[in-house]
């Protein structure tokens, strides 16, 4: 009976085997440098297009060039939360340790992108709107998203028992994910009630194709960066969690020997 379940040599191995930390650790180590180099190259190309090739905007002048960092950061901050909630759900349903570690490894990057989006947004807002901050719907929901990230990180850091920490974090990530659309629409509604005609980004004039290209390349750079950093972070999480196992001891011996 048991022999049926063992992988036979001619059978393709399932990708699911990488849900074992022991197997994912070397895979992450092999993949991360590739994504990191892709991030560097894409960022270099994207910034070159953004700062040297893309034309000056006839309304906003040079200030608009901040979007090459701002927009990809904002996209990424929202997307990372979704991925985090996805891993949290997978972890709670399938009870896989790797999923919780992925969720945990993603959070700091998401929070960082939130902060970058807010910061660059403020720098753009001062010359364009005349204020570093307005209580615009997008800005406000971005700020609240950053609080959700910080809450997740604070909660998982405050609980010492890894199992409880993982599950509590996963639950609050899911509660947050359910609330994100509610927060966004309530803030939007609040904003339209209070502010009247506010600055709208949606009916901005159509974008020159080089601007769009620069933004997309930067978005891919942000993706590659996120993947690389997350893989590195998850590697240290694996080592920390699995430090009592034999393979980690072996792995560390190898790394010491190489150094």
């Amino acid at each position, binding site marked *: 009976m048991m022999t049926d379940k063992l992988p036979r040599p001619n059978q393709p191995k399932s990708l699911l085997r990488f849900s074992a930390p022991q197997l994912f650790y070397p895979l992450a180590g092999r993949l991360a440098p590739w994504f990191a180099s892709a991030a560097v190259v894409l960022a270099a190309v994207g910034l070159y297009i953004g700062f040297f090739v893309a034309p000056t905007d006839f309304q906003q002048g040079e200030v608009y060039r901040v979007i090459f960092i701002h927009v990809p950061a904002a996209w990424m901050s929202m997307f990372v939360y979704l991925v985090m909630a996805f891993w949290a759900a997978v972890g709670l349903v399938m009870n896989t340790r790797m999923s919780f570690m992925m969720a945990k490894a993603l959070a700091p990057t998401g929070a960082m992108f939130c902060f970058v989006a807010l910061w660059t947004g403020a720098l753009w807002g001062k010359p364009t709107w005349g204020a570093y901050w307005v209580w615009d719907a997008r800005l406000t929901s971005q700020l*609240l998203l950053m*609080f*959700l990230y*910080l*809450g997740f990180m*604070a*909660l998982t850091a*405050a*609980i010492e028992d890894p*199992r*409880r920490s993982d*599950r*509590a974090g996963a*639950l*609050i990530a899911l*509660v*947050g994910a*359910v*609330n994100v659309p*509610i*927060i966004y629409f*309530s*803030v939007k*509604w*609040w904003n339209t*009630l209070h502010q009247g005609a506010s600055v709208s980004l949606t009916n901005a004039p159509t974008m020159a194709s080089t601007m769009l290209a620069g933004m997309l390349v930067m978005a891919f750079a942000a993706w590659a960066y996120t993947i690389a950093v997350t893989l590195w972070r998850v590697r240290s999480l694996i080592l920390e969690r699995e430090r009592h196992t034999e393979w980690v001891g072996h792995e560390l011996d190898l790394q010491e020997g190489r150094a």
Partner: protein
Amino acid sequence: MGPFLAVMRRDLMLAWRGRTDVLVTLAFFVIVVCLFPFGVGPETNQLREIAPGVLWVAALLSTLLSLNRLFAQDHADGTLEQLLLSPEPTALWVAAKVLAHWIVTGLPLVIVAPGLALLFDLQQDALGVLVLSLALGSPILALLGAVGAALTLGLRGGGVLLALLILPLYVPVLIFGAGAVDAYLGGTGADAQLLLLGGGLLGALAGAPFACAAALRIAIE
């Protein structure tokens, strides 16, 4: 319904025996509300303008302050573990505990709020909307807060952590709650906000007890 009523009766009785705890929450609410005129100045027009927001933010903060009492005592003396081990559905008695908690800490705020609103010279015909918005909104605060309280059960610095976890989730309730009074005063009518608050309450009633039950199991196991 048996376990629901039993847990609720027990919690209400415990709250009645420790009345001062309950009064502290209420006193906090009153004091926070009374602080605002010192901060922004006694200008009547301005106070009238900020009244709904001030009352709502104060209600939100006092809810937050009272939340750690929801499970902490039962956690300390082992009652919570026994309840979790019992065959009764967890979400049921969690809902009972939250309801009892709201009756003890939320309902007094709803009752006191119109009196405090008079200090801010809020129009008297808007008081009904204020009470209604608080009556619909504060149970949502208690239900959402219960999830956070369960997650932070027994942690160092739990109170501050709870604030960080829960306050962002409170924003929609605050928007619609204070917005209801503003909309009434602005002449557009508060129906939309009140309906949304009611919908939010039903949604929280349907979801929060289960999330809270899961959180309690995570915290206790």
